């Protein structure tokens, strides 16, 4: 029987991990809305965020904040490179969307192999942003890193909201998500918006990777589970709905954390996939599909 302490602890860690899934899920939505493409290389940005940040920390001994701030644009550039080298040539030739989606999956595998060749296949981690801890409230112990995840996750969501509602580029991205032809007819460069969406999604993945690495580890192959869970979060939320993806991620994170406590760690993915199937049976378009577009 689960105790109250375990329940509260699961909720906190679940929300933390769920925010990470949510950020990855939002990354899926940003690219999907701008282009209709499901970028299966999304998880690779989480891996690159952690790996590049670790490499900067270990090679140059920089402070954590500086290493993180350097890693994010580097990963964003990797997103731009995927768009320019993989997606755009196919897009310009009128390739079918499923072919482009398959190409992003191939890109994920290729980047994983390049990572093994350049950085090795050993898992690695870096210290929590605030050393010490965990914070103890009665019997409940919460690692400081979860507060960082929740704080930075909330900050990212706030910044994204400002970007999509207050900036011309954000509004132009939303316009592309609703009607690409109308956007082009107003002079909005749709293909450039696709590049922006890849950079933004990659940056979101990088933030997720940097935040989550201290709570576990990073390695060349962590992108796949984060990608899959982020994808599930996006589907639960109604694919394309950024707020829905965030809520879906948090829901998924909490259910996984509870499944680990109640049934054991082996049931983490069973819980995730069961939730996905149940949601799709009951709400084929996702729980929050009705909010699409109003919630960016």
């Amino acid at each position: 029987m689960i105790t109250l302490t375990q329940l509260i602890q699961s909720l906190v860690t679940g929300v933390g991990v769920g925010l990470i899934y949510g950020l990855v899920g939002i990354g899926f939505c940003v690219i999907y809305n701008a282009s209709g493409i499901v970028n299966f290389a999304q998880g690779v940005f989480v891996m690159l965020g952690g790996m590049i940040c670790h490499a900067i920390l270990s090679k140059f001994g920089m402070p954590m904040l500086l290493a993180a701030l350097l890693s994010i644009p580097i990963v964003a550039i990797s997103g731009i490179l995927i768009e320019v080298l993989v997606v755009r040539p196919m897009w310009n030739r009128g390739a079918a969307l499923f072919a482009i989606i398959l190409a992003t999956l191939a890109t994920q595998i290729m980047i994983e192999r390049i990572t093994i060749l350049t950085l090795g296949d050993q898992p690695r981690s870096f210290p929590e942003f605030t050393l010490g801890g965990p914070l103890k409230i009665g019997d409940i112990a919460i690692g400081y890193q979860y507060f960082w995840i929740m704080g930075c996750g909330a900050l990212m969501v706030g910044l994204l909201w400002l970007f999509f509602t207050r900036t011309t580029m954000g509004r132009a991205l939303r316009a592309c998500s609703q009607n690409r032809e109308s956007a082009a007819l107003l002079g909005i460069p749709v293909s450039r918006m696709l590049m922006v969406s890849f950079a933004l999604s990659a940056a979101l993945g990088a933030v997720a990777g940097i935040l989550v690495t201290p709570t576990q580890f990073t390695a060349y192959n962590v992108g796949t589970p984060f990608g899959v869970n982020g994808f599930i979060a996006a589907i639960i939320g109604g694919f394309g709905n950024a707020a829905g993806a965030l809520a879906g991620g948090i829901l998924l994170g909490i259910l996984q954390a509870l499944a680990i406590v109640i049934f054991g760690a082996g049931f983490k993915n069973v819980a995730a996939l069961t939730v996905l199937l149940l949601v799709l049976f009951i709400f084929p378009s996702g729980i929050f599909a009705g909010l699409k577009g109003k919630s960016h």
Partner: protein
Amino acid sequence: MSASALLEVRDLSAHYGRVHALKPTSLLVNEGEIVTILGPNGAGKTTLLRAMLRLTPSTGQVFFKGKDITGLSTHRRAEEGIIMVQEGRGLFGQMSVRENLTLGAYTQPSGTMSMDDRLDKVFALFPRLKERINQIAGSLSGGEQQMVAVGRALMAEPKLLILDEPSLGLAPRVATEIIETLGALNRKGLGILLVEQKAPLALKLAKRVYVLSLGRIAAELPATDIKSHHDLAQYYLH
């Protein structure tokens, strides 16, 4: 090319698969002129516009203010000053009226005129939009949506405004209001290319008319001559 030519289309042709939807078509819109393209459903009117704006692959040439813009993408053509209001309005239905209108000014440099001044110019033409400014565009009535679509196009300070069936599905009173607004804009020098299926109102404004039939220009004549062509008058004026 005519000295006052604003838009000149030469031998524009488009296919949908094996269907030759637009046979080589040429047309001209002069500076400050309203030209109407008439034609029954399926005549190729929308295909012609889509090909002109490069939304549909085509062959042929397009010149704008004497410059060959055949190689320019859709958004570059908008930057040149050709703005189209699509059939069905093409609004961003989940965004507010304000957001729709401000996106219309996407190509406009921010230093030249404040956004509020641009909006006020649109409100002067369509005062109702001022009351609806924070409303979601998709929740407006058909007439109000058309006003947003035209207003959004005007935010781009177009040199040529193209409208695909702007009166479609509108109450006669609203259609009249919009057509009269277009007439007022034209009197200030705006070139307008108006595509309609049946358009007694549009024909009152237009100087010249192209009649499109089965994917080709069947006739080009002054708008006033429509009445003298019995078949055309029967079809387009009643």
